[in-house]
């Protein structure tokens, strides 16, 4: 059965890039451009895994992550972000992130992190 993935990033360029990376392995069921959309779409599409940016308008990725985890404590979210601050990483993990990839990323690294999160 195909694994459903949701991509959350305000950048059209990054969403396109991520789709190219994951297309052979996962089915992208939806894309969100901010945290508010991410929470709504998670509830609607119930993806198996999510890639989540942090810096977004309307609602940032860590806040969105908290709402998603509240909805679904088993949610598998990989933060995929330019932010590499220690304190932000700790905050994301504390909020329920299962993986963390820094931009700019290499495609294999993203796939490895998603696989690792799904396998955990």
């Amino acid at each position, binding site marked *: 059965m195909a694994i459903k993935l949701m991509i959350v990033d*305000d*950048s*059209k*360029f*990054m969403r*396109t*890039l991520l789709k190219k990376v994951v297309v052979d392995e996962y089915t992208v069921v939806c894309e969100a451009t901010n945290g508010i959309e991410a929470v709504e779409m998670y509830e609607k599409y119930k993806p198996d895994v999510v890639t989540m940016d942090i*810096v*977004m*308008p309307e609602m*940032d990725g860590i806040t969105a992550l908290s709402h998603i985890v509240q909805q679904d404590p088993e949610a598998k979210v990989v933060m995929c972000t*330019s*932010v*590499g*601050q*220690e*304190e*932000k990483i700790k*905050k994301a993990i504390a909020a329920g992130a299962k993986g963390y990839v820094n*931009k*700019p990323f290499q495609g294999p690294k993203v796939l490895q992190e998603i696989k690792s999160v799904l396998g955990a």
Partner: protein
Amino acid sequence: MEGEVNKLIQLKMMGDKGAERTVESLSMMLDMNVDMKISSVNMVSLFTIPEIVGGDEVVSLFSQFSSTISGSMFCLLSPDDTKKLVSSLLGDLDNEGSDGMCDEMQQSAAEEIGNIITSSFVDVWADTFAIEISHDPPLFANDFADAIVDNVLVEASQSCDYVILFNSTLNVVNADINFNILMLPDPDSLQKVFDLFENVDL
């Protein structure tokens, strides 16, 4: 006097670290060799900043950061350099037929470059002081450089006449693309920065 010089030296070290991290990130992102040409930090009069940035038409990727330390970052490139850069980044995703202003995808790619540059600088500050600093998604603008910085300067002028300006020039080697990165911490933040320096060993 020695205290003031030490503060500038500490700020310069932070600026250099931010520029170095930016060079690493951009090199990886673009898969090209990126060099830092200049990195400086100076206290400048607000009124000289338009002169520093010049009056040419530029593409600006502007972001504000906030927390204990707040301020603004501008990443400035010529329109031609922007097109070269995003075309290189987009590769087969690029719409070669577009001319003039960047199309939506090109603009998005440019904004992502701005995002990574801002994060590179801000993360250095955050990790050095063990704090969190958030920044906004970058805003893309194509205008004359002095007009672009005007809003920020007007706001800054409410509280001061002089600001600390970080100025880095990066060069994408072989592609002859030049970035000018300006970081302006809010004047209110600077005292907090100097207080935080007391607790770290740079």
